[in-house]
């Protein structure tokens, strides 16, 4: 799969966030989005993942020369970031089952159990998310983002709230994921950049 972003520009009211950003990335690689706080890394991630419309420019996902529709993209991408929460009143299982069913997955239980185990959440899956620590919530977000086996994974602040063991699990995942699929990280952490094949640096506008 190939991702092409052309002339991405974003304004909030009269305030410019960034202008004319171009890049392309393909499966089997990792792209890192860098920039100081307030530079618009999160906004760019939201635009590229189709969560937010750009003021100008286009984002396309291609596969074998075919442009994917928004619905197809929705099934093919995974996303996690600090502003993207799961339902706090529901348990981890209720959350994951809801998202799996809505994504059209039928036999998702084995993958769900494997991922819960991989991220150290086995045994706590029937607790409401509200009762989780911030690190456990971040781990659950990884399970949510990976459950449907996406071809593109967007991760905003990959190490957020994770302990050393959690970071090690995530780094194992990144090494494996970028072998055949596309990994896009928004980070300011130099250790995360070990996975990056390409980098985009956003500067604060103005």
């Amino acid at each position: 799969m190939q991702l092409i972003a052309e002339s991405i520009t974003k304004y909030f009211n009269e305030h410019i966030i960034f202008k004319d950003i171009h890049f392309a990335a393909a499966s089997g690689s990792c792209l890192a989005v860098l920039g100081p706080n307030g530079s618009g890394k999160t906004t760019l991630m939201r635009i590229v993942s189709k969560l937010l419309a750009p003021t100008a420019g286009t984002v396309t996902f291609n596969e074998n020369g075919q442009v994917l529709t928004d619905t197809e993209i929705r099934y093919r991408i995974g996303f996690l970031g600090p502003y993207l929460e799961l339902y706090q009143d529901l348990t981890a299982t209720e959350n994951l089952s809801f998202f799996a069913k809505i994504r059209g997955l039928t036999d998702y239980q084995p993958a769900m159990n494997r991922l819960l185990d991989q991220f150290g959440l086995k045994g706590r899956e029937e607790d409401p998310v509200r009762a989780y620590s911030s690190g456990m919530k971040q781990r659950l977000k990884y399970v949510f983002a990976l459950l449907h086996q996406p071809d593109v994974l967007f991760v905003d602040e990959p190490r957020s709230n994770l302990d050393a063991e959690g970071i090690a699990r995530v780094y194992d995942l990144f090494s494996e994921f970028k072998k055949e699929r596309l990994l896009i990280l928004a980070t300011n952490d130099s250790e995360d950049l070990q996975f990056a094949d390409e980098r985009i640096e956003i500067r604060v506008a103005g």
Partner: protein
Amino acid sequence: MESLNQKQGLLQTGTNAYLIFKKDLLQEFKTRYALNAIFLFALVTLFAVSFAIGTFNASSDILSALLWIILFFASMSGLSHIFVREEEAHTADTLKLVAKPTEIFLGKLIFNIVLLFMVELLVVPLYVAIMNFTIYHILLLAAALLFGTFGLAGGGTIVAAIIAKSNARGALFTVLAFPILLPVLVTGISVTKNAATEKLFSNPVSELQSLFAFAIVIITAGILLFDFIWNE
């Protein structure tokens, strides 16, 4: 082939709308936020009205108007919650990531319709009993409540989606919803007055048709506009 794809698309939209409705229902039964707000508002208003005007003094005109005012403002206290909750809990983007706007709107609309029916099931019989409100044409009242609920829920859901993204959510909802839902209120009151009259004073069919038409128009407009509101 194209019509088969369309059928599959419609089936998927329906299934996902049902899943979103089920998720909202599960959340609501765990927190009872909207349910408590609407029930308590309706009950407090009902008892306040009964104490203020007494049970035998009011004419059917006043009783009809008061019933719809209670239902309208009770629904205003809870219908916005369906989108405000998603924005406040930062789950709107998560939902946006997995579902199409039409599926989300329909799921939320079904939830608001069910919520309103539950409130009406409790409030209307209580109101009739406490206020000594004689209904001669029960089916007519039931039809007005049915179509009125679709209109209130349809308008309430789309306005809830608009105000959820603003800062002054609570204040804006009723202010924006009132002019949009005024036709439901006025026609609902008129049909209820008719249902409370032994001999019908006007043909209720045209009024029911307008209630039904309003519901269809507001729900269709909601489906068409929701994409722009949700993705802004």
